[in-house]
Structure formats: C-alpha cells, structure tokens
C-alpha cells in the first residue's frame, strides 16, 4: 500500500492530485481509526525517510543533462508535496501526531536541507570555484583567500 502511494507520486500531475484525493477519501471513509493511525504512521515514516535521503545537489551530477535533472527535481518535490496534501486532512494529521514514529519522522524531514558529505565535497571543489565557510569541512585552507 505504501509502495502504491509512491507509484501515485510518479504519475503525471494532471491525474496525480485527483487520484490521491480519491484514495484518501476512500481511506478516511473505510478505515477504522486504529487502522488509519497505523497505516498513516507507516506511510509518513517511509515518506519522511525518503525525503531525508533526497540528494540536494543532484544538479551537479547531471549538469549537462537538464532533462534528467528536471525530472529528478519534480520527483523530489512530488514526494514533499504528498506530505503537504496528507497533513491537510485533519484525520491524517491527528494520526501522525499520535504515531510513535513522529519524532523520528521530524528528524528525517528536517534533515532535508543538510547536504551529505559527498555533496559538500562536490560543492567545495567544483572546478576553479572554491568557497570558504566555517561549516564546510576542508575549506579551512581557503580562509585567507576570502
């Protein structure tokens, strides 16, 4: 069922919103509160884990292939927007707040903006452009350049 949601994320935007809406309506109508809570916990936990692992600097790897980059970015944003759509519904937000994985989900969600070590390296040593920032490991030697 969780995988089914990720399949919906991959659909063209024209159908995605409507299908997601239909699925959520039928879930709210037919799931018992405990089942909804258990399912929402599992779904948002998987979604947030996926969000936490999204590469921030995917553009660097596909610098000359704009098409690939665009589709990756849309996919990444699509996943985040699913969380937005889900928590717009009170029953789902309620179930998420009560789920045992809420704090872990928050950790994953808010780690989105932190680049991984590889991403930092590629950002710091990109061509001739080198940056200094106290938070960037390995950039200490460039300190006096700036």
């Amino acid at each position: 069922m969780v995988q089914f949601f990720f399949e919906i994320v991959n659909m063209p935007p024209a159908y995605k919103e409507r299908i997601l809406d239909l699925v959520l309506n039928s879930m709210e109508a037919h799931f018992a509160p405990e089942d909804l809570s258990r399912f929402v916990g599992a779904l948002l936990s998987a979604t947030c884990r996926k969000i936490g692992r999204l590469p921030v600097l995917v553009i660097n790897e596909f610098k000359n292939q704009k098409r690939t980059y665009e589709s990756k970015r849309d996919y990444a944003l699509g996943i985040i927007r699913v969380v937005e759509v889900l928590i717009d519904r009170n029953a789902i937000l309620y179930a998420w707040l009560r789920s045992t994985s809420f704090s872990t989900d928050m950790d994953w969600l808010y780690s989105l903006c932190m680049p991984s070590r590889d991403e930092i390296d590629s950002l710091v040593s990109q061509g001739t452009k080198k940056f200094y920032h106290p938070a960037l490991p390995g950039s200490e030697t460039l300190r006096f350049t700036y």
Partner: protein
Amino acid sequence: MELLGSCVDQQQQALSKITDTLLNGRPLYSEDGTDPLVPRKHFLRYL
C-alpha cells in the same frame, strides 16, 4: 549554482508549508471529540 539555488528554494518552500501546518494548525479532536491534540504543542515538544 543558480539552478541549484532554485531547486533548494522550492524544496524549502514546500518544507515551510509543512512547518506552517504543524505550527499553526487548529486543535484536532478524536472521533468522540474528547481527546484534543494541538499540533503546535507536539511540534514544539519535538524541537
């Protein structure tokens, strides 16, 4: 770098909408209406 900036910007905008729902969402009630949950309280507890 410009494209990278716009990608991160869009991700952060989406994330800030989620944060807004968690911070400013209305209190939620269980089926029988007896168990109010305030999203803000839960979110601040996490922080």
